[in-house]
């Protein structure tokens, strides 16, 4: 599914996406942050591993998405449209860990780049979203 990128480091993408997820556990994003722009997390997750999407780029993640589901709307069978934020964050972590397994495709990288743009510094271990006591304070340029 898709062409693996020859220039993007999938390990680095894995770190970034996992870090965004970890960060979002500490300061949960309000999907209306930046005027609703973070709703995009749903679009990202849907394209990567939503069990209802037959064209998902990583369909083996569907099982984990199912297990994370808490939404009664679809009888707990995962409905990206209605899942609460903490479930989306869990799924983002699942995707982040999975990215390390195989090379990221160019289209996946494009979606991840856009997510990182919307989440500002969340992918770094900086203080802004980590609160005062948790997370690394290492400054990454």
């Amino acid at each position, binding site marked *: *599914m*898709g*062409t693996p990128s020859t220039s993007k480091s999938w390990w680095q993408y894995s770190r970034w996406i996992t870090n965004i997820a970890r960060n979002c556990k500490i300061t949960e994003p309000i*999907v*209306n942050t*930046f*005027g*609703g*722009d973070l*709703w*995009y997390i*749903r*679009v990202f997750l*849907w*394209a990567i591993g*939503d*069990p*209802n*999407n*037959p*064209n998902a*780029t990583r369909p083996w993640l569907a099982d984990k998405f199912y297990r994370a589901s808490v939404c009664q709307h*679809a009888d707990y*069978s995962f*409905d*990206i*449209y209605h899942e609460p934020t903490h479930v989306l964050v869990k799924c983002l972590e699942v995707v982040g860990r999975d990215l390390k397994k195989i090379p990221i495709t*160019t*289209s996946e990288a*494009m*979606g991840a780049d*856009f997510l990182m743009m*919307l989440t500002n510094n969340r992918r770094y271990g900086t203080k802004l979203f980590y609160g005062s006591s948790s997370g690394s304070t290492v400054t990454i340029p």
Partner: protein
Amino acid sequence: MADKSVKQQVARLLKGLKEAGASREVQDAAKKWLETIPQPKKK
């Protein structure tokens, strides 16, 4: 959602973005990105 086609699901997601108040830029980028994801070839 499971009984909806891919096209319907995409439309629903883009509608959701719009309703959540996402900026025009984000809506367009999401739409454009979803189009870049390769679809399986029809048999």
